């Protein structure tokens, strides 16, 4: 040791878990096969399918959306031509918060971080020429998730695709909005009802649809550790299951359609272990806590996105390397679907070229690296199994604390998760500023003169055009029908009817996202953060 001193006094993961010099098998770090199990079998530590990527690769699903529906439709077609296997729609902030493009708060935000969708007309343009019976579509939409799902169903009908054939996902995860991402509209209780209404409606009418994507991604981006990401996400999952059971649904009726969304950050082995731990923990929760009988209810299926906040504006090409490592961790962790970030995302939305390179990164991992040729290649690694156990244990402790606070909804209302995440975010920032945590190209190995890559710009004229569009729609449509469907929606919101059929009627009458959300705001009120 004196001859070969170590680089640091201690080595820790992003969650602060001490990393030993060497891992060897022991009873504690569970090389027993019963605890780990086999792929496709409870508790699914090694993956939810027996053959995993030997059967089929993960879905390559690049998140895209900007400007008008037509522009985004062009980017979708480009990505599909380049070999992407699923769509993933980014909506602009006014759409996500339930404002039409001509609302005063929408100024400057129309079409910026996603596509502007005001009405069914925009959705028709967005999906034009895309066969909804062949593509699965993920929509990152939360507070107004039922409105956008209703639009998707309506477009399907127009294409002659019945709703029971539609495949895709709506994010529909409001709890993480209060915790980490900020695009909430209504207070927690009515939001939870809207979510369970979607569970119930889809179980009957859209059975192949993933009714929620319980998201740790944003929790991690807000600054959490890997352990907190697992713990808070699964705690939110527990809250949704409890709400649905309380609303009278049978757990095995909706649980197989629950899906998850995780982040992949830089600590390679901790990330792999995180996915394995989350899968095992959820299987236990569903079987033991909720008494689910259907094995599909036990399986944690998840999408992964590489870590946006790990990317640097400095030396953007380095981000390609970060994304490659993160994507590899997701694949080794057994993801069902993957988005790889583009190198320029710390600066702006991706250009067509950078979006293509990001997709190619996945394709190289899939087709060239050989890592997809066997299932859970790191299973049984002393280190990975020990980390998997440790993450699971620490996540269980957090979940117990949240249970003690009265569950995730109560914990969110008390600001518990928000404070925990903020504390860690500050610590991380301090470690980066002190140089203790190295970020290549940013706090070490900097360049003096940084060349700037060409960036994607959204045409500033778009906002004016979109405003004209929604105003012209309001003048053209059957105002009486809009009025009646909105009034019926309000009455349903005041009572206990499932809201989905009412929202579908509003959408088909070409009521706008803003009008529908406004009707619901009138009844439910708006969330005021703690």
């Amino acid at each position, binding site marked *: 040791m004196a001859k070969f001193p170590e680089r640091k006094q201690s080595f820790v993961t992003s969650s602060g878990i001490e990393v030993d010099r060497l891992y060897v098998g022991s009873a504690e770090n569970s090389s027993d096969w019963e605890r780990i199990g086999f792929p496709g079998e409870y508790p699914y530590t090694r993956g939810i399918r027996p053959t995993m990527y030997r059967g089929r690769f993960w879905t390559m699903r690049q998140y895209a959306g900007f400007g008008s529906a037509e522009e985004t439709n062009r980017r979708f077609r480009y990505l599909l031509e380049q070999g992407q296997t699923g769509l993933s729609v980014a909506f602009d902030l006014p759409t996500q918060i339930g404002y039409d493009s001509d609302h005063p708060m929408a100024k400057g935000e129309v079409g*910026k*971080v996603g596509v502007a969708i005001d009405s069914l007309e925009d959705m028709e343009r967005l999906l034009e020429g895309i066969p909804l019976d062949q593509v699965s579509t993920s929509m990152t939409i939360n507070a107004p998730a039922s409105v956008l799902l209703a639009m998707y169903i309506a477009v399907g009908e127009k294409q002659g695709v019945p709703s029971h054939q539609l495949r895709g996902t709506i994010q529909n995860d409001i709890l993480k909005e209060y915790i980490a991402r900020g695009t909430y509209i209504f207070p927690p209780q009515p939001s939870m009802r809207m979510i369970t209404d979607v569970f119930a409606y889809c179980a009957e009418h859209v059975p192949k649809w993933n009714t929620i994507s319980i998201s740790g991604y944003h929790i991690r*981006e807000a600054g959490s550790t890997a352990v907190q990401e697992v713990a808070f996400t699964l705690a939110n999952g527990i809250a949704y299951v409890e709400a649905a059971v309380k609303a009278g649904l049978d757990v095995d009726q909706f649980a197989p359609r629950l899906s998850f969304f995780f982040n992949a950050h830089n600590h390679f082995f901790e990330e792999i272990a995180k996915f394995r731990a989350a899968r095992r923990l959820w299987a236990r929760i569903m079987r033991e806590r909720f008494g689910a009988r259907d094995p599909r209810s036990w399986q944690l299926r998840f999408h992964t996105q590489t870590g946006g906040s790990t990317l640097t*504006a400095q030396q953007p090409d380095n981000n390609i390397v970060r994304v490659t490592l993160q994507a590899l961790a997701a694949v080794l962790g057994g993801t069902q679907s993957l988005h790889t970030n583009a190198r320029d995302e710390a600066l702006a939305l991706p250009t067509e070229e950078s979006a293509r390179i990001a997709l190619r990164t996945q394709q190289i991992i899939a087709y060239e690296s050989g890592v997809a040729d066997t299932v859970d290649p790191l299973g049984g690694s002393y280190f990975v199994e020990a980390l998997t156990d440790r993450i699971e244990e620490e996540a269980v402790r957090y979940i117990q604390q949240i249970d003690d606070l009265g569950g995730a909804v109560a914990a969110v209302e008390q600001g518990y998760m928000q404070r925990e995440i903020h504390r860690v975010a500050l610590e991380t920032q301090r470690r980066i500023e002190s140089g203790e945590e190295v970020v290549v190209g940013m706090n070490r190995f900097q360049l003096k003169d940084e060349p*700037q890559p060409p960036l994607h710009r959204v045409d500033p004229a778009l906002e004016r055009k979109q405003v004209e569009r929604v105003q012209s729609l309001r003048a053209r449509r059957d105002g009486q029908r809009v009025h009646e469907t909105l009034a019926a929606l309000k009455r349903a919101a005041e009572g206990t009817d499932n809201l989905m059929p009412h929202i579908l009627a509003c959408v088909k009458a070409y009521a706008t996202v803003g009008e529908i959300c406004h009707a619901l705001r009138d009844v439910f009120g708006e969330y005021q953060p703690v």
Partner: protein
Amino acid sequence: MKRKKAVYGMNRPIRVLVAKPGLDGHDRGALIIAQALRDEGMEVIYTGLRQSPAQIVATAIQEDVDVIGLSCLSGAHNELFPEVTRLLKEQGADDIIVIGGGVIPKEDIPFLKQHGIAEVFTSGTTTRETAEFIRQAVKTREART
């Protein structure tokens, strides 16, 4: 409308309003900078999410701040930041120093500076650098008035 300008002096800590204009909900950076500036001895008020430029300016005047720090990641900065400085001017409060941060391409920075944004801090800036800039800018302005 002219407002009464504050008397800045040795005994008064620098007051900063950290604001999130527009609809962007990512406030990790805003919360970090707010805490860091408090640790540097400044008085910091955070607006919370979804503030219009008019609301931000009203709060800044009411709270009698020296500095407004705007944070935006959605790409709406070219619309929202100049609107804040325009309203400050309109209300005779353009002695308030406005700085910005977030996901802002370098090529946009000259435009923002032309519109009265004193400095734009993007990712990689340390909180200490930001605090130092604020102290210097306040000192320079004091010397002028």
